C-alpha cells in the first residue's frame, strides 16, 4: 500500500470518526432508555436542512452523532446541506407552504421570522439548560419568543479578527490593538507596508453583517432602542460612519463586492493580511499544510485570531453568528424532532462534535467551557466565549421578526457601504437607513 501523509490523515480522520461513532452508539442506546424526554413516534423519519459545513471534520463528527441517534432510537435522519445564504429562503418557503424538512438549522434570528411555525421546545431547552449550567444570555434571546423556546441556539460561530502576526509586526504592532483608534492606525500601517486589510462590504450575511454591526455598536449607534423605536439617525451613528470610511479608505480595493467567501480566498492568496472571519481560514491553511503545502504550513503558523477592538462605548460590541436549530410545526414527528435536539445537545455528543469543529463552533451553555477543544490549540481561545460576548440581532431592540428583516435587508450594511464609498454623505446614508428601518419597524 502506498502510504502518503494525505492518505494517513484521511484514514486517521476516518478511524477517529468511526471510533467516535462506536463509542457514541453504546452511550446513545443507554440514553434512549433512561434520559430521552420524548419517545419518537412509531415509524418516524426526520429530515434536517443545515448550512453547508466549512470544516470537514465538523461534518464528520456531526454525522457520527446523527448515526448514533439513529442506532439508539431507530429514527433515520436525512441531513441535507445548503449554502449558508440559501437556508433562510428555503426555510421561509417551507414555513409558508407548510411542507418541507422537519428541522432547519439556520442563522441568527431565523426562527423569529416565522415563530408561529416553530414547535415549542421549551421542555428540551429547560432540561439542557438545567443540566449544563444554563444557557448563555444571548442564547436565551435567540431561542425564546416570549416565554416559549422556539429553537435551540445550538452553537455560535465566533467572528474574529484574523490576522498575520508577521504583517502586524512589520507594521509596527506587537499585538492586536484593543481599541478602535489603535485598530485604525494598524489598518493604515498595513496599507503603508503594502499588506492591506479588507472586510466584506457586499451583501455578505455573515462576515459583512458582523463587522458593520460591531462598527456601529462600538461607537454607540443603534438601529432601534429597547422599545424598537428607530434611533439610527444619531451623532453616534455618524461617528461610526466616519470611522468605517477611514477603514475602507485604507483597505484593499473591491471589498464592496465581497461576499462571505471572498475574504477567505483573498487572505489565503496573501492579498489581504487582516480580515474578519471564523477560524475557518486557519483551518483551511492547516488542512493544506497537512497535505504537504509548505507555504500554507508557514501561513498557518503565522495566522492568529483576536477579539474585536473596543470602541468609545467602552465595552465589547461583537456580533457573532448564532446557529439556531428549529423544528417545524408541520412535521409529522414532533417528538422525534425534540428527541434529536435533546440528543444533539447532551454533552457526550455536543463536546466531541464541537471538538470536531475545531473552534469554528462555540458552545451555547456554560458546561461547554470545559470541552476539550478549548485546550487543543491556543489560537482557538478567542472563539471560546463567543456566546457570552456577542450582542444579538436587533441590538438594543427585540430579536423578533423585525430584527430578522432588518438583517436580511442589510439596512446597516447598506448604510455603511454607502458612506464608505462616498456615494452618500453620512447624513444621507443615515436618512436612508432611518427610512428603511421605519418601514420595517412600523
Amino acid at each position, binding site marked *: 500500500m502506498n502510504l502518503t501523509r494525505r492518505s494517513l490523515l484521511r484514514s486517521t480522520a476516518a478511524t477517529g470518526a468511526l471510533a467516535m461513532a462506536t463509542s457514541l452508539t453504546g452511550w446513545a442506546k443507554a440514553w434512549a432508555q433512561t434520559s430521552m424526554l420524548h419517545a419518537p413516534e412509531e415509524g418516524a423519519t426526520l429530515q434536517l436542512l443545515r448550512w453547508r459545513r466549512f470544516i470537514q471534520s465538523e461534518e464528520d463528527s456531526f454525522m457520527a452523532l446523527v448515526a448514533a441517534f439513529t442506532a439508539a432510537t431507530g429514527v433515520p435522519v436525512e441531513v441535507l446541506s445548503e449554502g449558508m445564504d440559501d437556508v*433562510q*429562503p428555503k426555510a*421561509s*418557503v417551507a*414555513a*409558508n407552504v407548510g411542507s418541507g424538512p422537519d428541522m432547519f438549522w439556520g442563522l441568527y434570528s431565523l426562527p423569529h*421570522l*416565522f415563530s*408561529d*411555525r416553530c414547535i415549542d421546545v421549551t421542555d428540551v431547552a429547560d432540561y439542557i439548560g438545567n443540566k449544563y449550567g444554563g444557557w448563555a444570555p444571548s442564547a436565551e434571546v435567540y431561542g425564546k419568543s416570549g416565554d416559549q423556546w422556539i429553537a435551540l441556539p445550538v452553537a455560535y460561530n465566533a467572528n474574529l479578527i484574523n490576522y498575520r502576526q508577521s504583517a502586524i509586526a512589520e507594521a509596527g504592532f506587537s499585538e492586536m490593538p484593543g481599541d478602535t483608534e489603535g485598530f485604525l492606525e494598524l489598518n493604515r500601517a498595513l496599507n503603508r507596508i503594502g499588506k492591506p486589510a479588507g472586510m466584506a*462590504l*457586499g*451583501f455578505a450575511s455573515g462576515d459583512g453583517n458582523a463587522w458593520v454591526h460591531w462598527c456601529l455598536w462600538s461607537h454607540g449607534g443603534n438601529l432601534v432602542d429597547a422599545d424598537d423605536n428607530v434611533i439610527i439617525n444619531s451623532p453616534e451613528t455618524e461617528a461610526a460612519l466616519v470611522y468605517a470610511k477611514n477603514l475602507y479608505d485604507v483597505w*484593499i*480595493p*473591491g*471589498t*464592496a*463586492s*465581497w*461576499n462571505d467567501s*471572498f475574504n477567505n*480566498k*483573498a487572505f489565503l*492568496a496573501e*492579498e489581504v493580511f487582516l480580515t474578519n472571519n471564523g477560524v475557518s481560514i486557519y483551518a483551511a491553511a492547516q488542512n493544506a499544510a497537512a497535505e504537504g503545502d509548505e507555504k500554507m504550513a508557514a501561513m498557518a503558523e503565522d495566522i492568529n485570531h483576536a477579539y474585536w477592538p473596543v470602541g468609545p462605548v467602552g465595552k465589547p460590541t461583537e456580533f457573532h453568528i448564532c446557529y439556531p436549530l428549529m423544528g417545524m410545526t408541520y412535521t409529522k414527528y414532533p417528538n422525534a424532532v425534540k428527541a434529536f435536539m435533546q440528543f444533539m445537545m447532551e454533552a457526550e455528543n455536543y463536546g466531541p462534535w464541537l471538538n470536531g469543529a475545531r473552534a469554528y463552533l462555540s458552545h451555547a451553555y456554560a458546561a461547554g467551557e470545559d470541552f476539550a477543544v478549548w485546550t487543543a490549540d491556543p489560537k482557538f481561545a478567542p472563539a471560546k466565549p463567543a456566546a457570552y460576548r456577542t450582542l444579538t440581532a436587533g441590538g438594543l431592540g427585540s430579536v423578533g*421578526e423585525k430584527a*430578522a*428583516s432588518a438583517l*436580511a*435587508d442589510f439596512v446597516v450594511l*447598506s448604510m455603511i*457601504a*454607502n458612506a464608505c*464609498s462616498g*456615494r452618500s454623505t453620512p447624513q444621507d446614508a443615515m436618512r*436612508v437607513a432611518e*427610512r*428603511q428601518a421605519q*418601514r*420595517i419597524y*412600523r
Partner: protein
Amino acid sequence: MADVPLSPTRSAAAKAGGASAWTRLQTNRNWLGLWFMLPAAGFLILFLAYPLGLGVWLSFTDSRIGRPGEFIGFENYAWLWGDDVFWLSVFNTLLYTTVASVLKFAIGLYLALLLNRHMRFKAIIRAVVLIPFIVPTVLSAVAFWWIFDTQFSIITWMLQGLGLIDHQINWLGDSTMARASVIFANIWRGVPFIAITLLAGLQTVPGSLYEAATIDGATRWQLFRFITYPLLTPIIAVVMTFSVLFTFTDFQLIWVLTRGGPFNATHLMATLSYQRAILGGNLGEGAAIATAMIPFLLAAIMFSWFGLQRRKWQSGGSDD
C-alpha cells in the same frame, strides 16, 4: 355564431326529450368549444392567473411568511413611494433592460446577418453561437463571478500582463463598473437567442426580392432598409418583446454575481422583491414591488406590438 346542431337526429331528440338542457350542453357547438377550451383555460387560471391575482392581493396586505396578514390598502405602495432603494431598483431595472436589450438586438441582428451568408461550416458555427444560451444561467454567472473578481479577474491579469494597467480593476465593487459588468454578462447570454431567432426570420425572406432590387440598382443598405428590415419586423417585434421581458425580470444573473450590491447599484426590482419577501419575510411588500413591475412590462409589450407589429408598410402602405 349561429346555434347549429351537430346532427338533426340528436337535435330532434334534444327537443323531444326531458333532459334537453344536458343534451344541448353535449351537442351544441358553442358549448363544445367551451368544453374543449376548459383544460387549457384551467391550466392558465391555475398557474398564471391565480398566482398573479394572489400576488396583487398580497401587495395590499401586511402578509408575512407563515401568516396570512390583513388588508392594508395601499400602505405598502405608499412606503415604497418614499423608499430610495426601491426607486434605485426601478432606475437600475430600466437602465439594465434598455441598455442590454438595445445592445443585444444590435449585436444579435448583426450576427444573424453574418450567419445568413453562405460560408463553410455554417451549421457548426450556428450551433456554437447558441452555446451561451444553452449554458445554465447560474453556471455562466459563476464563471462571470470569477471573471469579474477584483483580486482574481483573468481580464485584469491579462491587461496587467500586457502592461496596459498596473492596478486591479474594481469590477463589481464600483457602482458604474458593476452595472456595466452585469449588463455585459446579460448581453453575452442573451445575444444567441436573438441572433438565432432573427436568422430564422431572415431565411424566410425570398431571394427573388433581393435579385429584383439588385437589378434595379439597390445598394446593400437599401436592400437591408427596404427588404430585409420590413420583412423582419414581425419577428423583431416578437423576439424583442421576449427579450425585454426576460431582461426586465432577470434574477439569477444578478443574484449570483452581486446580490444587488454594491450599494444596491445592481438591485433590480425582481431581486429587491425577493430580498424583501423571502429573505426579509415581508411578503406583502415584496409582492408590491413585484406588482409594480406589471405596468412596465405591459408598456414594453404595448410598445413592441403597437410600435412594430402594426406598421402599415408591412402590408404595402406608408408609415404615416
